């Protein structure tokens, strides 16, 4: 599904290398988790994969479904099936959440040469999906993320994911800021999408989320690299002992 090889990334503005050779493969149908200390480059990896400006790839490659991701515009990557649930979802005053989502869904359909979703059909689908995430009609009408609480923003990300039905989902700390119940809702939203054809990359600091979204593989990222890969037990180890042991072991 997603294949990253020896990815080196620097900031465009300053000559600072953030990713220092990331190797990572996420197979279709699998959930991979990434954990790692603050500042290790997890969000940077997610941004680079989704096509944000400001980064320079100095070496390596990232392929998705056989296509060269790094060669595509951000919107092309989305249409090809990539989705990033942002660590910090962006507020867009003046653009209604509903308008935003319908434009997004139909832009992707258009790019794939599919028929656009009618307003009526869209309304029906979004209402049903919003309900399962406990997002009320008012939140759909309001400008994108404006005045949303931290948890509401995160649920809104999952709603977008549910509407867009991407094949490769990256979730960047979607659990942070969520209360216990919201965490369950979000996890259910993710689990509902789990299937053979879909891959997940879940970035998190906490085992809690992984209790609900059971990962197949856990990676530890440190200083711009994947330094250790293991099964679900690796997350438990981090939860109990922190990163010190692991970092010492690979140093």
């Amino acid at each position: 599904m997603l294949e990253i090889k020896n990815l080196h990334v620097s900031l465009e503005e300053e000559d600072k290398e953030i990713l220092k050779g990331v190797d990572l493969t996420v197979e279709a149908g699998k959930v991979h988790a990434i954990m790692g200390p603050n500042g290790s480059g997890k969000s940077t990896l997610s941004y680079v994969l989704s096509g944000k400006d400001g980064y320079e790839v100095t070496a390596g490659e990232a392929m998705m479904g056989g296509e060269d991701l790094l060669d595509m515009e951000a919107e092309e990557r989305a249409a090809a099936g990539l989705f990033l649930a942002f660590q910090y979802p962006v507020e867009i005053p003046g653009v209604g959440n509903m308008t935003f989502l319908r434009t997004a869904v139909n832009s992707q359909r258009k790019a794939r040469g599919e028929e656009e979703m009618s307003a009526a059909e869209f309304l029906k689908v979004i209402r049903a999906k919003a309900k399962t995430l406990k997002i009320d009609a008012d939140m759909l009408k309001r400008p994108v993320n404006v005045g949303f609480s931290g948890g509401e923003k995160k649920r809104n990300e999952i709603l977008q994911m549910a509407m867009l039905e991407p094949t490769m989902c990256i979730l960047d700390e979607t659990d942070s800021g969520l209360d216990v119940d919201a965490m369950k809702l979000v996890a259910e939203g993710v689990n509902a999408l789990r299937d053979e054809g879909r891959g997940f990359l879940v970035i998190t600091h906490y085992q809690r989320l992984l209790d609900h979204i059971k990962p197949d593989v856990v990676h530890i990222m440190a200083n711009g690299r994947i330094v250790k890969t293991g099964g679900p037990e690796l997350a438990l180890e981090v939860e109990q002992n922190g990163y010190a042991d692991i970092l010492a072991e690979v140093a």
Partner: protein
Amino acid sequence: MAAPQPKLDPLAARLEGLSLPKGAAWATDAREAALGRLTAMGLPTKRDEYWKYTDPSSLTQAGAPKATLFDTGEAPLFDAVDRLKLVFVDGVFDAALSDSFDLEGVEIEQISDAMSHDIHWAKDVYGVLEADGQNPVERPLAALNTAFAAEGVAIRVTGDVSKPINFVYLHRNETSDAMLHHVIRVEKDAKLTLLENGPAAARFSKSMEVDIADGAEFHHVRAQGRDHERRASTHIFTRLGERSVFKSFTLTVNGVLTRNEAVIDIRGDNAVAHIAGAALGDGATGDFHHDDTVFITHDAQHCESRQVFKKVLRNGATGVFQGKILVKPDAQKTDGYQLSQSLLLDDDSIFQAKPELEIYADDVVCSHGSTTGAIDEEALFYLRSRGVPEGPATDLLVLAFLAEAIDEIEDESLREDILARLEGWLERHGS
């Protein structure tokens, strides 16, 4: 050696070939007085403080610079609205294209008819509001219009008019130099919605004096024509009575030069005046210079004024805003708000703003803000990461930016009409 030609002074050159239209004695007096004001002031030049950001020379030169006709290929705006339509072709009233003047609650006449009567209500409005509006800032182009405009309509509203009146300004001649002067009186507790649209002429001078009596309402929605090379200098002079309402919105897309002046004089307590504008300029399709110049005087208590002006500029387009709120000593409890913002889509475009507050009363709330910004890159990326291509994503953000101005249009269906036009325009200009 041939004697050098004496150089005509600019005013004489501009007035050559013009003559004061004929009318009743009071009408001639009003026009001669306007000519007197104009002669005393002279024509504006770039050296004048009030014209610092906008060069008036193409507005003051003798003869209109050519403006190519532009077919938008769209159905005319407001065509679907149930309205009374009055059509002007290159500034000349066209009865055949217009609806009949019969409408309950309103008297409509051509200005030439109104001004031929010895006794007429227009005497208290024509040139009167304009003359008041010459202080403290001179507006010579308005005086020129009052003196020489031979076309326009006089509208007196006595009831709640069932449908809007729509002035449609067609442009058919590439060098037309049009002058229109409308006078409108909305009597006590009466209500009118006025729509205006179209490019009007190669060079268009339009003045509108609107007298709003106690408890009356005047709503105004205007879309200036999209002919790229057209020039326009427009004035609205309005006077508000007690509890009266004035709400005006203008959409401007394209036009090599537009100067819209509004002079709003709040005389009665508890009155409300809102004026808003949305302008979009793309220098790639022709030069674009748009200037909103507003002067609001609060001379009564418990009144509210609100200015919301938004400009989206790209490819070397220029936007100007000069807005002043003057609060007189007795205008206590004034609530004045002024917002002027521009969104620059590139580094070539320019926005110049001169917001001013002059307050002599102590118990007032006045605020003003003026900002110039670029597109929000974070928001743009967020949209693109959801699959919206850069062009449409930019359009969404542009519409979001303009929303606050467009929301000033109270009537929902008119608001939708204006929005639909904007979306169409953006689609053609999207990056």
